């Protein structure tokens, strides 16, 4: 199991400073993280539902929530939540009760799990997986299952229609989504969110958005596809109120109903966060000297917090990064909300046509273009990127060289290797960490 970077930091801290047992330390770290993620999962929909209401109100030339919690009605979401919890949990007679009850959980779990791999700042993620993007897409793809099950198990034709539409839509849109995700991946050569973000340090010209024309277009395509993947308007045919009453959640009520919405907003945030990290520089500000200041001055400074390399400055730097990240992601979510309340809904066949006839070919074209771009660019200008970024080819070469220079031993022999008389190679994982640091520096 890939170690949980953030958790391990806490766990190591506990282990080394408080001399607690490894198991206990890990358990505590896990609990902390779970709490944080669940909190985030609760918080994000609350904020965004409020934001949606306000934005919708403003767009429809009204005020939106104004009362609850103060001046902007910012506690409206909480109030809604309380109301929903209080509602009766209904199960239709025709429904398959077991599946009917389980479906929202699956949806929710999918959304929550997405946060496991999404980092908010340098090292601030539950799992620093090398395949973060991949896992994220994988987890997001589970969501649809819950929706289909919900639609099916409700025993209602509206629900079934909605579920089917949703299934068709999401299965279709997963393809361009994945291909659009591949475009920056191809340019960067990594799936690790931390690395992706680290590469885009410095001025905004380093963002993948401006890496080449293809990534630029890809960002917008991605955003459209992601919006559709979150079944947001104008692609919200699965819950089209005017036709299907409420789509797959027609029969749901109370908390189970709210779970779907929490999952939806969480998914919105997730895809926006992915867009930010892939295209918009992640937790980097986009202003060169600010980034340099944060990373070169703030990060290494301050007293050590007990473990090597973990200083107060890094904590502060990460905090700043978190804020930048949240702001960018929220902006994208705002755009999604904006779009919802300004654009009319498409027909289901138009939705499918858009995906299968336009978005997939376009994304394939973009993918091909981004693959060929470095070749074209290097033959014409001698560079592999338009602006000043770490050249892809160099980093790949470096990886290959490192792999070759690495002592080649089966993983199983790690223990023996450690006891070997070769201290230089005692840590098999040194190489990979080196890469990360090399990129961040």
């Amino acid at each position, binding site marked *: *199991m890939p170690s949980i970077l953030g958790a391990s930091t806490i766990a190591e801290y506990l282990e080394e400073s408080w001399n607690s047992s490894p198991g206990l330390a890990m358990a505590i770290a896990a609990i902390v993280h779970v709490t944080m993620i669940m909190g985030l999962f609760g918080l994000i929909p609350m904020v965004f539902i409020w934001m949606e209401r306000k934005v919708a109100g403003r767009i429809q030339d009204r005020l939106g929530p104004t009362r609850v919690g103060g001046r902007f009605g910012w506690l409206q979401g909480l109030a809604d939540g309380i109301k929903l919890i209080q509602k009766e949990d209904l199960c239709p007679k025709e429904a398959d009760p077991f599946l009917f009850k389980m479906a929202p959980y699956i949806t929710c779990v999918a959304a929550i799990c997405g946060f496991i791999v999404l980092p908010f700042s340098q090292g601030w993620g539950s799992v620093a997986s090398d395949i973060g993007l991949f896992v994220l897409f994988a987890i997001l793809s589970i969501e649809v299952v819950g929706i289909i099950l919900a639609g099916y198990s409700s025993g209602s034709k509206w629900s079934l229609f909605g579920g089917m539409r949703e299934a068709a839509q999401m299965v279709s849109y997963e393809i361009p989504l994945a291909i659009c995700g591949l475009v920056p991946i191809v340019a960067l050569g990594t799936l690790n969110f931390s690395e992706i973000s680290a590469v885009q340090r410095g001025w905004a010209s380093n963002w993948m958005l401006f890496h080449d024309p293809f990534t630029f277009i890809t960002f917008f395509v991605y955003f459209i596809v992601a919006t559709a993947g979150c079944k947001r308007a104008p692609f919200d045919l699965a819950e089209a109120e005017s036709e299907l009453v409420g789509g797959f959640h027609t029969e749901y009520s109370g908390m189970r109903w709210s779970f779907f919405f929490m999952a939806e907003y969480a998914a919105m945030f997730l895809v926006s966060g992915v867009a930010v990290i892939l295209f918009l520089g992640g937790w980097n500000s986009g202003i060169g000297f600010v980034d340099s200041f944060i990373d070169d001055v703030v990060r290494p400074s301050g007293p050590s917090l007990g473990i090597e390399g973990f200083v107060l400055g890094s904590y502060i730097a990460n905090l700043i990064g978190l804020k930048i990240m949240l702001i960018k992601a929220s902006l994208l979510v705002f755009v999604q909300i904006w779009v919802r309340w300004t654009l009319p809904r498409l027909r289901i066949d138009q939705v499918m046509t858009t995906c299968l006839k336009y978005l997939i070919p376009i994304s394939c074209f973009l993918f091909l273009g981004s693959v060929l771009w470095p070749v074209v660019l290097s033959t014409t200008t001698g560079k592999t990127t338009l602006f000043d970024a770490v050249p892809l080819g160099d980093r790949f070469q470096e990886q290959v060289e490192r792999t070759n220079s690495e002592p080649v031993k*089966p*993983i*199983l022999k790690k223990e023996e290797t450690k006891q070997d008389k070769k201290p230089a190679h005692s840590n098999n994982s040194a190489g990979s960490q080196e890469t990360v640091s090399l990129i961040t520096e």
Partner: protein
Amino acid sequence: MEGISLNSFLFVGAILFVSGIVCMATKRNLIGILMGVELVLNGANVNLVAFSRYSSIGIDAKFIALFVIVLAAAEAAVALAIALSFYNNHQTIDVDQADELQG
């Protein structure tokens, strides 16, 4: 990963495998049988991954596991197509009805 032995993984694989077999043998629904097939394949995959972790096969087993997954997807696609075709022809999905080839 202290305390988890290779055998534990293999047991999980065995249970998946046998479940898949029994599933295939008992389900009358063609799609149920397909699920059994998926279970069987996953049982095999567990073994591959486990041996990849616990033996000197190393990364090759993971490659094979990947291929199994991908080909299982292909298999599922074809099988579903067959199921649909079958359904279109027989107006049922019951495999017990598909006995035209009996001796």
